[in-house]
């Protein structure tokens, strides 16, 4: 797996690409709208605005970010090392322990006193914050686009309504003209007077011209209404897709935030309880004894150290039980996890199998 920084950079580029694609599509749809308003045929523009490109791009991006979130797990694995170190003795301490148990124990005490994971916690927060900013930026873009497309769509819907209304009126007009023309033709058929007949014929010609004009208008309006319909279809699909994408972002953000918060609390609690358990007893017993002699103190320390170790193990177990079964925590985590899993099943599978790059 690539290191965190590289992966962040990769994700940033992908987010930028996806955002460019998304805005491009929206602007293409908008351009089509503008052209349509000026009466040009826009069928080609609409057909060109394909979603597949965008989807491929955002899928790649989401996959990368999901991986990044799981990559945080690997970052936090570093904490485990700290905990283990706090619980066990270093090589040097073991070596010294062969000669003097007390000295080894006091060395470990000293190491324990200076141990701190605050920097690591801050690092965890800052890393998860970077990812969160990425996601929130993406979410903001999606929402902005959604609003644009929505307003655009509602305008188009009204326009289509008026177009359909006009179309129906034209059709009614055409129907109205029909009996008039038949009537006139009948009149011409029975008319004997040449002058009157000419007048009637020119009237008929006029009506016919009007009829043709109306029929043509009907065609134009029909075409316009169909284009609008197609446009609306496209717009609706785009809106759906935007909505879906923004839901995905929210799931990712939610998962990330719950995870990070809980990690901070968990690691912090674990370190501090390790520290507290390890030191408290020793310090107190020694203060009570006073420091009569070096030897006595060190003996006491070794004895207490051993006792504390077993007590600490018990406490850790109890602690872990508590942590694992903290009901609400689990529920919330389960919820976030479930939503996350539903959307990122495949990536999770790959991550678990460690099978990146395989089809």
């Amino acid at each position, binding site marked *: 797996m690539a290191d965190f920084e590289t992966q962040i950079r990769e994700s940033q580029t992908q987010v930028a690409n996806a955002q460019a694609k998304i805005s491009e599509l929206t602007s293409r749809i908008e351009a089509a709208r503008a052209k349509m308003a000026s009466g040009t045929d826009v069928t080609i523009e609409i057909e060109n605005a394909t979603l597949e490109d965008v989807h491929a791009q955002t899928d790649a991006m989401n996959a990368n970010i999901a991986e990044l979130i799981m990559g945080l797990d690997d970052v936090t694995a570093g904490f485990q090392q700290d905990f283990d170190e706090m619980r066990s003795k270093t090589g040097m301490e073991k070596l010294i322990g062969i000669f003097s148990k007390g000295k080894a124990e006091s060395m470990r005490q000293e190491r324990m*006193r200076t141990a701190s994971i605050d920097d690591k916690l801050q690092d965890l927060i800052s890393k998860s914050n970077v990812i969160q900013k990425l996601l929130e930026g993406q979410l903001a873009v999606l929402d902005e686009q959604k609003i644009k497309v929505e307003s655009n769509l509602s305008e188009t819907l009204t326009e289509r309504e008026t177009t359909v209304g006009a179309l129906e009126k034209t059709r009614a007009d055409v129907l109205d003209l029909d009996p008039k023309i038949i009537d006139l033709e009948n009149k011409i058929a029975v008319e004997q007077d040449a002058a009157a007949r000419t007048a009637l014929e020119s009237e008929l010609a006029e009506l016919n011209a009007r009829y043709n004009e109306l029929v043509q208008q009907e065609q134009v309006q029909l075409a316009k209404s169909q284009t609008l319909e197609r446009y609306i279809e496209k717009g609706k699909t785009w809106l759906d897709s935007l909505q879906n994408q923004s839901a995905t972002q929210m799931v990712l953000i939610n998962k990330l935030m719950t995870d990070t918060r*809980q990690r*901070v609390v968990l690691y912090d609690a674990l370190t501090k*309880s390790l520290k507290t358990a390890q*030191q*408290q007893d020793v310090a*107190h017993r020694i*203060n009570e004894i006073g420091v009569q002699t070096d030897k006595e103190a060190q003996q006491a320390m070794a004895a207490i150290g051993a006792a504390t170790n077993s007590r600490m193990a018990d406490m850790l177990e109890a602690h872990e039980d508590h*942590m694992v079964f903290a009901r609400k*925590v689990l529920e919330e985590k389960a919820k976030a996890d479930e939503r996350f899993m539903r959307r990122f099943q495949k990536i999770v599978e790959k991550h678990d199998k460690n099978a990146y790059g395989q089809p």
Partner: protein
Amino acid sequence: MSDGKTDLTLDHFTLEDTRVTRRYFDKFEKITGYLGKVAAVMEVEGRYQRHEISAIARTLVALNLTFRTLGYKYHFSGRAAHAGKLTFDRIESGFPVYAELLEAANDAQQADRHLANMPTVEALKDQMVRVIVGDQEIPTKLQYALSQRLYYEELAKGGLFWSRNDPDIQWRGDRDGRRQYFLHWAVYDSQINLPTIYLMELEDTGKVGLPKDERRWPEVMAHLMAQSVGGLKLLTIAKGFDEDFDDLHPKRLRRIHIGPMYSHAFTQQTGPLREVLEKAKSPVGEDWALVWTEEDLRSDRVEEVKSGWFGKVEREIYAIDPFAGRGADTGATALARSIIMPERPFQSLAELKPDGFDDVRKFVVSPTGRVLSYK
């Protein structure tokens, strides 16, 4: 070990509503404002010396700034679409959770970059006027942008109370040829989510003065910060410090816990205070009580201990509260509790007279700025 430590995020509570969030920060602005006055009263009573109180006051001001900063950050939570929400610990704390401070620290590192990309306050206000007059709309988005701008400005100004505030050292003169130092530092305790101030009096027998000693001073700072854990008793901290630094002799160590803050509207509490606050039926802004606990550990005597084959070092033996055996082992020489509250809750406390409040010092604050102290 209390439950708060093992339940993890169970006590954490997120404020969803804009109005409630603002009320929460208004309350804290008032409380931290009163704290300075209370500290002044404590100085008059002789509980602290001038240099101690100035260290405490500085920390309190920093705390106030941190709350103001967080207030800007969350001014529009629940109103603007992407505004964050404040999480605070509602059991035995009432303060924002530790992670909030870590996040703020993280934001502070990037404050300059954010500020460079944001329109200025004037520009935002100008745009707001345009939206109000032109579109006849409430410019929520711009208002949110302004709140974030102010947030980053506060962060950039600095001087805030962080999750860790490294030690500051003052030379207090020489006694018997030994340098006397006064150290103070503060942490935001991550286990109980409360700000904690540490004060230490130190004798130095090293060759080079401690603040100028490039070897010991960074070690001392790292040691103290790593040991500033609420779960450790003062005795444990002082003892460990004494052992790890042979030529430094901690004579007195004090720890001040600011909080918990109880409020009927926000926090969940058990015990008599719950009833007191409920009975008081205080109006908004006066519905709170803040606990101020001071632990004090003094050195009783010094013993000489062999170190290695030839050397000898001094080790402090600390005086422990003679009554410590009766209840919980405090690991300190003395423990003093105070409670700071407005008039209404105090009235209700005086009427109800619950057990366990007799030896608690009560500071009653009023909006006029007067602080009264009752035994």
